[in-house]
């Protein structure tokens, strides 16, 4: 068993309520932080821990905190990004649903460190019942003096507000989230200015992912240096992975980032192998926006080394032969899955979720979806593959926010690694409607069922 820091108590009956959470040692980190530590010391611990943002980009959290501007007389805000809408990612929902007080404790410590008296949880609208759970937890925490005015007699006030989104993926982008929270249309802002200078209501703001904020609790409990010892290299601590797709045991797993991808997929402790004894074809290791990898490149890097479940190893080889850790949405595809159809599904998602503000993303995502649809329906032409490649190349990097990149990468990676499957679709128009391309040279080289 690997180290568990966040989900350690997730299976304790009634952990969702304040009483059980407190009995199991909850809010001791908050007590320690507020009573014994200075603001600088907390930020220093988070910096030492090497905690990286768990929302997808992997930006060091401590560094993000230290960027926040502190002008006199201007309130600052902490916003918790719980707008988890990436296809394949559902770790934050699990965390909030079972351990709402862990998030609140993390929020309290972080709010204290950042000087935020009004802290917001921007939660995805579809997580309606989770928002109710959080609101109940906030009432309980307030009743017990962990939120509200003059917390623990320190003179620090902190209110946590739950704000429900209205069903837009783009509102997971931090500036779009801020716009939406202000009551405006969720269009990403043009940066600079960055939220740390001018964020919510033009005040300095830090936006952090749910898991990042929850991870602050064990960091304060055990100290940043101890936390940094877990994991490997710059991938410190534990990471929640939401595994789904054609595996025996889908679910949310906490890993300490030293485990290999192969072990993660095949060991009984985690995914438990491919469902139905089938063969592994491909995997999207970090949520829908990261590049897809064929089995041979997933288990071993291009250099032939074992690939591990951490930020560095997953991105080894760049986009040519690697992928990204992303938000930890681990989507496994078995031999019966069609890459063209899979790419079409993703392209449709991004077309639907593009905010329509800047032209490359607005027009390009729709165009890519239509071409993929055409190929999938057996009407493709060989020039379409090059056209798709050209479109994604022209979207990537030319948009206001990363949604354009996120829309371009899956298409690029699918063509890069599975071009022959696209070609097969185009050359065998009728056959492709009834049968599947299956596995070819990119089969999993290790695990071939007898």
């Amino acid at each position, binding site marked *: 068993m690997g180290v568990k820091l966040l989900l350690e108590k997730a299976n304790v009956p009634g952990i969702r309520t304040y009483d059980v959470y407190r009995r199991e040692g909850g809010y001791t980190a908050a007590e320690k932080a507020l009573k014994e530590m200075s603001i600088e010391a907390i930020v220093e611990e988070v910096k030492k821990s090497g905690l990286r943002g768990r929302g997808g980009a992997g930006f060091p959290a401590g560094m993000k905190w230290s960027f926040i501007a502190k002008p006199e007389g201007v309130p600052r805000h902490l916003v918790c990004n719980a707008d988890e809408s990436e296809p394949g990612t559902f770790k934050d929902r699990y965390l909030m649903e079972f351990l709402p007080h862990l998030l609140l404790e993390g929020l309290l410590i972080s709010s204290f460190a950042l000087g935020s008296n009004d802290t917001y949880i921007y939660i995805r609208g579809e997580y309606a019942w989770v928002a109710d759970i959080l609101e109940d937890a906030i009432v309980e925490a307030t009743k017990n003096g962990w939120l509200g005015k003059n917390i623990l007699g320190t003179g620090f006030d902190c209110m946590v507000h739950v704000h429900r989104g209205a069903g837009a993926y783009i509102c997971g982008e931090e500036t779009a989230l801020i716009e939406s929270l202000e009551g405006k249309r969720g269009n990403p802002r043009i940066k600079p200015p960055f939220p740390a200078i001018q964020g919510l209501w033009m005040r300095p703001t830090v936006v952090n992912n749910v898991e990042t904020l929850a991870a602050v609790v064990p960091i304060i409990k055990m100290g940043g240096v101890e936390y940094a010892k877990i994991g490997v290299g710059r991938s410190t601590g534990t990471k929640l992975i939401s595994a789904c797709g054609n595996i025996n045991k889908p679910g949310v797993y906490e890993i300490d980032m030293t485990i290999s991808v192969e072990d993660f997929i095949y060991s009984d402790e985690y995914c438990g192998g491919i469902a139905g004894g089938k063969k592994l074809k491909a995997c999207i290791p970090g949520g829908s926006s990261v590049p897809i990898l064929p089995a041979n490149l997933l288990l071993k890097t291009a250099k032939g080394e074992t690939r591990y479940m951490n930020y560095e190893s997953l991105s080894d080889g760049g986009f040519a032969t690697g992928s990204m850790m992303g938000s930890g949405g681990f989507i496994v595809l078995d031999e019966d899955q069609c890459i063209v159809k899979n790419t079409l599904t993703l392209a449709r998602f991004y077309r639907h979720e593009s905010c329509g503000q800047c032209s490359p993303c607005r027009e390009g995502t*729709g165009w890519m979806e239509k071409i993929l649809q055409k190929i999938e329906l057996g009407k493709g032409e060989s020039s379409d593959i090059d056209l798709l490649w050209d479109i994604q190349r022209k979207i990537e990097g030319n948009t206001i926010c990363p949604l354009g990149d996120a829309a371009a990468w899956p298409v690029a990676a699918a063509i890069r690694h599975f071009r022959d499957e696209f070609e097969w679709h185009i050359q065998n128009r009728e056959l492709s409607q009834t049968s599947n391309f299956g596995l070819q040279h990119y089969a999993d080289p290790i695990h071939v069922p007898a």
Partner: protein
Amino acid sequence: MSEQTLFKVTVDNITIEVPAGTTILQAARQIGGAVAPPAMCYYSKLEGTGGKCRTCLVEVSKGSEKDPRPMPKLVASCRTTVMDGMEVKNITSEKVIDARAAVVEFLLLNHPLDCPICDQAGECHLQDLSFEHGKADTRYEFQRRSFKKHDLGKYIQLHMTRCILCYRCVFIADQLTNKREHGILDRGDHTEIATHIEKSLDNEFIGNVIDVCPVGALTDKTFRFKNRVWFLKPMDAHRNCPTCSGRVTLWNRGDEVFRVTARKDEWGEIEDTPDGKPGWICNTCRFDKKHTNDWVIEGPRAISRQSVIAQGHYAGNIGTTLPTEIFKAVNDGRAPHLLMDIHNESEVNLPSVRLSEIEGPSHGNTFNNNSTKA
């Protein structure tokens, strides 16, 4: 006033000194000519515009004197401020030209290309942009999005099919009128400009949305299908208007005033009045005062923007000033950007043709006769 810090910035090998806080686009416009990146959504007189259309992308090859690292991505020049010692590549960068052609293709993807029946033709920024930076063909083979026409009140019609979603009309309603009644509905490629459930726009200054619209999406109903802009003679005029500056351009044919617009500078933006404020005009001036005796005529207006109408009679300087020596040298002999010479294409615009002398509907013969006469 304290002394302003001046930053040295180099755009396409031409160095200029500008005050701190200037954007790359503004600095490039001060140099002028082809060095200035095109802008479809940015409007210097409106706060918060820009960054959306991505036509003004430039490459920053040197960040500043202090931090000479180049910027990793192309940046939107309209929203990026200059740093001291910054080096910017616009038309001298292959990447920029490639990206700009891509943006033009994206903008035209769902555009109906109905220029032959569009009132904006001849003064359309998208026409100019696609002529300069686009390709002759489209690679798009699917159905384009379509919308019904909407009447936004008595004076304005909205053709959503032509819209490129620059958001300028939204910003202007926010900043110029006391209550914005239209906005953006939906998202992605089905986004549309709309009033909430078929309301009409009846603010006294709402007519200015027509002037800021870079394409033919918002058109003047009092002018629709009346005439082609290149047949009209622009005249500067003013009147003593109680609500606005009253400084306008009249678009005449003979003595008849076909339409009234605000005065636009060479970037297609509203000119400032002598007191330094943008010369927005009110609906009364724009839509109701359509007789020459309502106005004090100042004289013919030189249209200096690079467009078809600029090549008619009254252009003070055709096209713009071009840094010719740099172009050929640094850009592999790429020709400086001049639009087609309209005189070669059409006899209508021959300098010898005197449009104001034509009476009644005109056709090819009229011009042939007229030009031989003159």
